[in-house]
């Protein structure tokens, strides 16, 4: 797979002048130009309705550009959305809506089955993905009987089993209690350490900001800030985003988990 190389960093996702307008006339994305490098950990933050989720859906080919372009590893998403979905795994905000299989095993196997892998490969991928998110031993459980945090981990496993290059997650900590949030965060850090490119949207920077290498802030469908988190968080309230507590107390960015 061809990927463009910029400043020695391999770019996996590129958007140029991306625009999106909903049927009611709302401008969801307005001239968004971004590039994401291999292995990067990026947080896309913004208030509700700022265009974060719409942007993610373009990466995965669930939405196609109305104007401008999106390419994944050099291939236009418009020309080949299936290739984009193979490369970019998307974890939705509502884990329940992502559950497809009757059992944990079936749910994780859904993606590899769509890739037409053989049964041995599918078994191998499912076992490995479940191991990565600590769900080994739950293969025969009904996904609906899992806790909120386990469902979110199952959704991540379902995407990991497809071996994507990029993992995009829409509000991964929403509706989770403290232990589940910690667990998801620890798993995300583990995946990043293993070499995955991760893009996360959130309006709550507290939990994730210390671990991200890049922070993009969106407002009304436009990218208003893009750079290193330490520099970007200054005066972030004006975009409807609550700054992390440690920043408010003048202690700089502190990690939420060690």
């Amino acid at each position, binding site marked *: 797979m061809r990927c463009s190389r910029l400043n020695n960093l391999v770019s996996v996702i590129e958007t140029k002048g991306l625009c999106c307008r909903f049927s009611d006339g709302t401008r969801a994305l307005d001239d968004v130009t971004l590039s994401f490098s291999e292995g990067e950990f990026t947080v896309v933050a913004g208030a509700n309705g700022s265009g974060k989720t719409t942007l993610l859906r373009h990466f995965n080919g669930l939405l196609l550009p109305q104007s401008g372009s999106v390419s994944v590893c050099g291939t236009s998403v418009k020309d080949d959305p299936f290739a984009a979905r193979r490369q970019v795994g*998307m974890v939705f905000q509502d884990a329940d809506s992502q559950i497809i*299989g009757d059992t944990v095993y079936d749910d994780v196997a859904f993606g590899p089955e769509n890739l037409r892998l053989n049964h041995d490969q599918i078994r191998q991928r499912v076992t490995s993905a479940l191991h990565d998110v600590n769900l080994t031993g739950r293969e*025969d459980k*009904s996904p609906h009987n899992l806790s909120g945090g386990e469902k979110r981990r199952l959704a991540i496993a379902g995407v990991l089993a497809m071996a994507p290059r990029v993992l995009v997650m829409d509000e991964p900590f929403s509706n989770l209690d403290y232990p589940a949030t910690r667990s998801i965060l620890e798993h995300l850090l583990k995946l990043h350490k293993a070499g995955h490119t991760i893009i996360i949207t959130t309006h709550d920077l507290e939990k994730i900001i210390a671990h991200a290498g890049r922070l993009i802030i969106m407002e009304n469908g436009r990218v208003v800030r893009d750079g290193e988190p330490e520099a970007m968080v200054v005066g972030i309230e004006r975009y409807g985003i609550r700054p992390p507590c440690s920043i408010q107390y003048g202690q700089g960015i502190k990690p939420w988990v060690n």
Partner: protein
Amino acid sequence: MGELTTIGFKPGRSKIHRLDPRTKQLLVMVLGVTCLKAGSIFLAVTSVVLFWLVHLTGLSFFQFIKEIRYFLAFLFCIFLVRAFSFDGDSYPVIVGGNAREAALICWRLLLVVLMGVLLVFTTRTGDIRASLIWFLKPLPLVNERLAATMVGLVVRLLPLVLYQAKETGEAMRARGIEKRKNRLVRLTRFTITLFRRVFSRADELAESMQARCYNEHRTLPALAFKRDDLVAAGICVLLVSAAALF
């Protein structure tokens, strides 16, 4: 969401769980059709076999009754309509022969539903889909993969619709819908809200399937006939032969 409904696949290791899905579907078809024609002796024997299988699979009998309570009410209506006769009187009277016939009809329908529930309870949706593809493949002008996917989605969505109906009902009761005397208004409010939610869930499900590269030509589960399938088919042949004889 945990106690979605009983009528959905539950993993297990019972004999019936281990049967090939094609065998199970064939048995449901053959026994279902035979039930609709058979007499009380066959129905009694089939009932015993089915309740034994229900016990084997671990399906709670009372939970099953609770889940099909609306269908049971429907059966009761069928019984009333078939059993009572006016025969020139101004009030309905129960007629012995009619009542027996009505009871038989209800018994047959109940057994067919029980077989369907057992099939869904013991078979993965993916296996049902693979088995349907196998059955439909020889038919000309039928896109077997698309047809099987449709059936699979219905099986997948049905528990979600029931769950959504329960949630919507509870949310409406929490805001005092019972105080509305007009049943039509209550029904309209409930139905519109339920349908909006169900369509939205169906959309979300379709999107998440699409995000994971869904296509019709996916790897199908491996199906294999084993000795148990032969035994099950043998029992089925015995039952059908008995129905033909008695």
